[in-house]
């Protein structure tokens, strides 16, 4: 299975990114990690987290940088490049413990034609 992982929602913590990539690697024959962030500084730290996770868990994956609206870019890439599944960190929890779904996750869930897996 050809799996696309999207990282870089504003609240994706390093732990959430690691968990999400690990979960995706379990089901993927081919894995691509898309780092979605228009902001150059965050992009560097996101890329470092992704690289560390891949090395630490001995996961082989292609990485790429995506600019523009992360939700629509992910849906577009999955569709035009024949991915079978999109995997995202599935919602942060508030101080109260309520799960909140951000705009990127909502867009992907509503618009993707592939299976979408939310990891938390």
């Amino acid at each position, binding site marked *: 299975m050809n799996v696309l992982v999207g990282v870089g929602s*504003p*609240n994706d913590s390093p732990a959430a990114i690691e968990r999400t990539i690990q979960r995706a690697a379990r089901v993927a024959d081919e894995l691509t990690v898309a780092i979605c962030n228009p902001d150059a500084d965050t992009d560097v730290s996101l890329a470092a987290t992704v690289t560390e996770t891949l090395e630490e868990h001995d996961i082989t994956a292609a990485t790429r940088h995506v600019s523009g609206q992360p939700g629509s870019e992910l849906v577009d890439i999955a569709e035009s490049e024949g991915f079978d599944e999109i995997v995202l960190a599935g919602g*942060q*929890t*508030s*101080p*109260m*413990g*309520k*799960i*909140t*779904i*951000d*705009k990127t996750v*909502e867009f992907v869930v509503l618009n993707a034609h592939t299976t979408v897996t939310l990891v938390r």
Partner: protein
Amino acid sequence: MNSERRYPETISGPFEEPPIHFSDREDRDIEIRPYDGSEAEYEALAEMYVEFDPSDRAQGIPPGRESRVRTWLDGILADDCYNLIAWDGDTAAGHSTLVPDGDDDYELAIFVLQDYQEAGIGTHLIESLLGYGYSEGINCVWLTVERWNHAAVSLYEKVGFETTGAESFELEMAIRLAEDD
């Protein structure tokens, strides 16, 4: 969660402060008072959440399994949170809580056991919690609510919450109890 949260300029209140007593619409004698930190009250609350109807869960809380209910309660009954319990004798009928968000403001949630819903307990639980929060020096309170949950949204609007964020799955609502320090 994020320090750019917007709050209404208008101050709401004053609100009643706990403890309060009243008869609910079913003529049950209800008392609302702050959680006293005792094991007996903790256990009564745990029992309420274990009995909670899964269809009344919102955004993953209360959790479904008893072990996870207890982990969750340990977090929101901590010393830096403010908790009120509505009692029908020894039975916990409802619970409202304010949890610090790390930005000097507080997230609010309220739960009423199914048998005690639509009896006016929720309104008292939320108003007396806001009164309690105000008396403890809290300026701003926010919450998130699923947008289809019209009953909850109108309750929050009735006490003075305004919608401050509508661009994600959940509505974010906020209320101001006092001017910023």
